[in-house]
């Protein structure tokens, strides 16, 4: 499943009110490491299947949400469970490391 795009307007409905945990990838076009981490996020999304929803939020176009969660470095991945932040991963990491961080939470 391809990650869905979320915005300031859809964040509450798609992320905070989601029944399944959501991993949100905060990114921007000018950020090289964001482009490196994107395929890793895609691969992780595929492996977890229905257990995890994956979303991308462009921090350039959605500054309210980025500011609300104190994003000061990208890429940042936030895992939301029942509307609350359950995990924060900052910077590029390979798939095995990303999965190790998420496994216990899903």
């Amino acid at each position, binding site marked *: 499943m391809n990650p869905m795009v979320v915005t300031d307007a859809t964040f509450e409905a798609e992320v905070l009110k989601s029944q399944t945990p959501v991993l949100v990838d905060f990114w921007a076009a000018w*950020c090289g490491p964001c*482009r490196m981490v994107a395929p890793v996020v895609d691969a992780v999304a595929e492996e977890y299947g229905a257990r995890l929803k994956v979303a991308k939020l462009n921090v350039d176009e959605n500054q309210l949400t980025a500011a609300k969660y104190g994003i000061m*470095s990208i*890429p940042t991945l936030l895992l939301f469970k029942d509307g609350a932040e359950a995990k924060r991963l900052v*910077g590029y990491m390979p798939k095995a490391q990303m999965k190790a961080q998420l496994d216990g939470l899903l």
Partner: protein
Amino acid sequence: MTQRMEAQARELGAAFDIRAVEACVLAGATKRLTAGGEEFQARSVIIASGAKARRLGVPGEDEFIGRGVSYCATCDGAFFRGKRVAVVGGGDAAVDEGLFLTRFAEVVVVHRRSELRAAGVLRERAFKEPRMRFKWDSVVTAIQGEAQVNGLSLKNVRTGETETLSVDGVFVYIGHTPNTAFLQGEIRLDDGGYVVTDDELHTSVPGVLAAGDCRRKMLRQVATAVGDGAVAAISAEKYLAGLTDRDGGKKGVPR
């Protein structure tokens, strides 16, 4: 630009499989690399594992990564619009990235010496930039904050005096460490961990080449890295052609 390079390589038949190498055996005709628990075999290997930003190693650094501590001004500068940030270091990268950050923020360069090591043209621009000032002879001893960074503990290396510098962020540019730990004992590395190569980018082991920032060299920039890539590719090709010549062209891909 890198995306276009990748697309071109794919069109020419290159396959991409991004994994961290856990172990390798490079001596001998068949090179074996373990990555993601799977073994890969090759007759020639080009090492281009790069280098990563060196960390300060002070209290608060790990804790505040992504909450004010950054190693990438291009990525994170825009989050500090209208704020005050520190840049740690005095080399080209520190000054160049610091100047970039003045687009968004007021910048304080914290440097352990009393002059910049950066190139003359960068130094000139830095001294002319009204939004950039300098804390000389100073090292960071701790990064402070609550939810986010709010200051740095500094120590003057000459006088021993300590002070707190109020900042909303800190960008660290104190050099790099090569990503070569996995090569220890397999090929020759210098004291800094950089791969030692000859002019054609052969390492100490036949068939193993190195390119880019992981290699011992004078200038580590994109321009020299892509040059290395071209040289290493041709050297690998020559090496492979030499193998084929020696066995009369009978040798196939190792199983």
